[in-house]
């Protein structure tokens, strides 16, 4: 008896119902991105009701500048989280980057430029080393990057024991420069988005996400374990170094301890933006929204004139709500689709 020839046609009502369930499922599947968007909108509405001029280009320029260091660090973290790992060493790398910049740039623009590239290269190399250690020694990313964080922080302390040093005046103008009314930070953000929309469609981008989703299947399909880890953590190190360089344009100094302030927020921004700690799911757009949410919370605390200790409390609550809401949405999506 052949069944392949029979057409299976559900009746009209079932189709309509099916279609409604289908769209509901699609919507729920995007919930981990929609939820942070709604949160950001709510926070902005609150912020806008408390202060004049929130919805202006100037405010966008300011907030982007405030968010950019975190955003750069979180971009690297996003890539690592998609791979199913975590990178704590970015804290050490950011500290090391700022002290190297503050002590080595000097006043010669050529020397400063050379060191800027040097710092980026060190970031990528240290990251690649993380990836290699994780693969070859078969150690947990958490442990390996905890160790390298400690090593990098110590190195930063030796180079510059206290906050200080100096940067060329021209270097610090970067944050104030504008083009077509948009600040350099906003342009940097657009560049970051362009990078992401390119990267996520490359074979490497897909392979990183695939490896985070199911390591065994990815390796069976020809992904190289060493290659993928070196690339993932190398990119994370590179972005941490870029975050350090950006930070020095704002602070004008080096700090051997500042990096630790970015480790957990970089994870928080990504998770609020819908990235799964188990890997494979999410994207940079979510992380960017997450970073803005964290930044706007800081602004709100300032405008409300309450103690600045409220900032981490509110951030924590927002984190919980975001994670909870996406998890509920994911569950109902699964129900309506299987």
């Amino acid at each position, binding site marked *: *008896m*052949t*069944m*392949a020839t*029979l*057409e*299976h*046609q*559900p*009746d009209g009502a*079932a189709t309509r*119902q*099916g279609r409604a*369930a289908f769209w509901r*499922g699609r919507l729920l*599947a995007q919930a981990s991105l929609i939820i942070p968007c709604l949160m950001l909108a709510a926070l902005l509405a609150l912020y806008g009701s408390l202060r004049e001029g929130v919805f202006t280009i100037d405010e966008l320029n300011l907030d982007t500048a405030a968010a950019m260091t975190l955003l750069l660090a979180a971009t690297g973290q996003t890539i690592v989280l998609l791979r199913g790992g975590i990178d704590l060493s970015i804290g050490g790398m950011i500290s090391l980057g700022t002290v190297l910049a503050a002590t080595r740039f000097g006043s010669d623009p050529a020397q400063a430029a050379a060191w800027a590239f040097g710092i980026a290269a060190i970031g990528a190399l240290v990251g690649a080393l993380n990836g290699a250690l994780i693969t070859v020694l078969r150690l947990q990313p958490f442990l390996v990057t905890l160790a390298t964080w400690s090593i990098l922080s110590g190195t930063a302390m030796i180079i510059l024991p206290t906050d200080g040093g100096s940067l060329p005046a021209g270097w610090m103008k970067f944050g104030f420069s504008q083009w077509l009314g948009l600040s350099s930070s906003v342009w940097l953000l657009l560049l970051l988005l362009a990078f992401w929309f*390119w990267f996520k*469609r*490359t*074979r490497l981008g*897909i*392979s990183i*996400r*695939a490896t*985070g*989703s*199911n390591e*065994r*299947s*990815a390796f*069976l*399909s*020809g*992904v190289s374990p060493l290659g993928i880890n070196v690339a993932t953590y190398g990119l994370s190190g590179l972005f941490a170094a870029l975050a350090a360089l950006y930070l020095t344009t704002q602070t004008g100094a080096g700090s051997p301890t500042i990096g630790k302030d970015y480790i957990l927020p970089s994870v928080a921004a990504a998770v609020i933006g819908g990235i799964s700690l188990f890997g*494979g*799911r999410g994207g940079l757009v979510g992380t960017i929204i997450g970073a803005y949410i964290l930044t706007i919370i800081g602004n709100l605390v300032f405008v409300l004139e309450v103690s600045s200790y409220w900032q981490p409390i509110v951030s924590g609550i927002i984190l919980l709500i975001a994670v909870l809401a996406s998890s509920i949405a994911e569950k109902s*999506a*699964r*129900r309506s*689709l*299987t």
Partner: protein
Amino acid sequence: MTDLLTAAAVTKSYGGITALSRADFSARAGEVHALLGENGAGKSTFIQILAGAVRPDGGQVHLAGSLYRPRNPQAAQDAGISPVFQELSLIPDLTVEQNIWFRREPLSVARTVRARALREATEALFARHQFPTIRPDQELRRLTLADRQLVEIAKALSSDPKVLILDEATSALGPRETDWLLGLSQGLARAGTLVIYISHRLGEVRQIADRITVFRNGATVAAYDTKAVDDETIIADMLGRRMDRLYPERKPTATERVAVRLRGFGVGHRLDGIDLDLREGEVLGVAGMQGHGQRELFQALFGIGGARGSVEIWGKTKTIRGPRQALTGRDGLALVPEDRRNHGLLLSRSVRENLTLSVISRFTRFGITDPKREGKLVDEMISALKIKAGTPEQLAGTLSGGNQQKVIFGKMLLTEARILLLYDPTRGIDVGTKGEIFQLMRDLAAKGYAILFYSSDLAELVHVADRVAVLRNGRLAAILEGDDNSERQILRAAMIETRAA
């Protein structure tokens, strides 16, 4: 005509355990060649060697006349050998099309994947092989097991292999998809591909295979032209002895007592208006085409997914809110799930831990477990079910498929629940174990257990169940018993209105 693929005296052992002691194999281009054997006979090891996932200790494989020694799965694929593994090699968070072309995507100048070209290639592939409908942009984790299997097949076909290996590929498929795959295999063979077909379903093998090679205990024991050999001989070769009967004698043991009474039972829009009585001592079969509500019925009874309508368990009205509630005590229900590797077993845990996980309270006093009483329960179960494990501490993941399934049965029986929900319990397990499981089911029924039994293999329902309830579009289409309980009648009931619509 010379053979496309020949293997001579291939050996492989893991530690002290010999998986292959002497595998010989020879197959032509343009044929469907079945590879048969019990689980543990070495079929999996052999095809993993062909697929480049495992390297043999000794022996030689030749492909198209030259020595074939792939370093990794990639190299095997480059040489034209594509496996469809039972254990799915797909990535849950990528879409269907991304999975099919993973690492072989069409790239633009900017080194990015060309979305349109990817879609076109996928649609062309689906059209060329007349695939059942799957949306290419759907994320894999949102697909059913059957659809994932189809994607796995598509992935293997996408490289236009010279040798396609199908390992139990139909075990996850419904009747309609199975027929499609059988037709596809024959079509590919006609076009010059060698299809190596591994299945526990002799009917399928008979339908499409030109030749058959039988493995037993890691060695090749026989090779036949399919037309020149009967089923009994093949089964005898696989088992090393004449199989008495695959299906046990079926004595009616059902009583008047109703174990589960469903009235107007339904789930969402996928299952509706089910009136069904499962009696004490009865094996009640459930049949239907893939996706017509069987899974929903089992899950809802076990408390997964909200249900409506009335449920009476042993005469008492019940609302089952979740697996914990369903499991409890002698009045409870126990389920053998569809996907045993993911849902039924903790593969990295021991046989003992798996068996007793849901019944810890049975050997716990004052919050402390009693290892002696636990050990006794475990030993009883291992010997009663003839679970082949070195010790109770052996990891469940290292057992053969059939023995894993027995562990799940043991786990279920230890709950003391007398209503058993068996969802495709023989999927992908060998003939010998199948026979044991059928016997066990009839024995349990004789002891007063009530068993609801779904199988994707209709012959099992016909031969093991007392009655068969056929579902169609989420509704009860017929209940067949006696002479009406036949494959023909089940198919008629499952399809007839579909035909009219």
